[in-house]
């Protein structure tokens, strides 16, 4: 199903909020497609989902699951 309005932004917010994307220390948070693909892959692997790097239906559904508000330490790059 194609992305609805705001779904991509919501996904980026999720990846940011939970530590899959590194908040840049200065400047606005516009991420390269590579950054987002990499962050999605890490999230999908940690969630035991098919690792596609795409914002597919199962990934979006997983992002809607109830969860803890603390970050996830699964992206080694952002973890550092």
């Amino acid at each position, binding site marked *: 199903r194609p992305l609805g309005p705001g779904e991509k932004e919501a996904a980026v917010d999720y990846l940011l909020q939970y530590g899959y994307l590194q908040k840049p220390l200065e400047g606005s948070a516009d991420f390269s497609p590579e950054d987002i693909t990499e962050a999605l892959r890490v999230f999908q692997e940690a969630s*035991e989902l098919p690792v596609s790097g795409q914002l597919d239906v199962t990934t979006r559904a997983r992002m*809607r*699951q*109830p*969860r*803890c*508000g*603390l*970050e996830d330490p*699964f992206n080694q790059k952002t973890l550092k």
Partner: protein
Amino acid sequence: YLLLGRWRKKHLTFRILNLPSTLPSDIARAALLQAFQYWRNVAPLTFREVQAGWADIRLSFHGRQSPYCSNTFDGPGRVLAHADIPELGSVHFDEDELWTEGTYRGVNLRIIAAHELGHALGLGHSRYTQALMAPVYAGYRPRFKLHPDDVAGIQALYGKKNPERKDEEDEMELSTVPLVPTKPSPMPDPCSGEVDAMMLGPREKTYAFKGDYVWTVTDSGLGPLFRVSALWEGLPGNLDAAVYSPRTQLIYFFKGDKVWCYINFKMAPGFPKKLNGVGRNLDAALYWPLNQKVFLFKGSGYWQWDELARTDFSHYPKPIKGLFTGVPDQLSAAMSWRDGRVYFFKGEKYWRLNRQLRVEKGYPRNIAHNWMHCRSRIPNTTPSSGDIMAFTAGTKLDTTPSAKYTTLSTNSSPTVMDITPQATG
């Protein structure tokens, strides 16, 4: 697991600042207390509740607005809770969630609280999606327990729970209770075979109560006799009945027209309560795992009680013989045991029932010989698998606690479930 920090001390205080509106406060409290217990069971940590002033760990509920938390919540769903890492100690729950206990509906408070306490103790999120410390809520699990990764993480922070030290801690906990009998009372002889009550308690320990004393019964022997009040502070002796509910992880004691309820070895707030809706001076009580109900016995009748629902006792008591085939009236004690069978005790004898609640062949048998490991003065009866043989003394009395509680009450709503024979098939 991921380690985010640790407390420099292992004996922490905690304070519950407020509770959710979607759960009766006693059930919510019990859920939070049990959450601490999961971590206490596997690490050399102790948690002492304070009712006022500062505490190391502070649990509270807030919603989209909060005067003391910049991390506001987002309404039902999505973010359920958050916590600070050591040594900050704040643990916040989203008050807009449907917090529940004992059901698949809503969000289980006990499991989420245990997760957030994991953070407050220094753990980060786990890669194991079935671990407690996984970031996403995996739903209600009736027999929830920590995942090996959770245990490995907390022990990496605070070390293993040393059984000797555990006993010390329990002794220390016990030392706050007068071990010296307040007035001399005859110590019972377990080999008399007579008991006031029997209970399969937390961690499947079998407790026998007689007079002012309680002891454990194990496959290898009897534990030392303790005064009842030395373990359960505030509990009188000469009890009528005792029952532990794995469903709520609460222990109930009955005597006269009152019921006592304990979380671990601490009396639940507001107890003892007066019994209403059921008889006083009960004979026995048991928890039946097949329908998760508590059964209370007196004379020739029984009451069936659902701890988590309002029960209409107007159709009770029902005849014991109508459900428990072959069991005598005027019981001394009753218990569902870890072999899946139900045991009834009267005088020096006991009866064992199969899963269809029928007394099995070859019963009654002698309590002293088959349960209390006493050399019998009666001809040796061949013990069955559910009975206990082989004898050594000195089993350590289990004082490991467990926690959650509810209230015993009645009102007009119909009985949740009737288990008369035709209904159970």
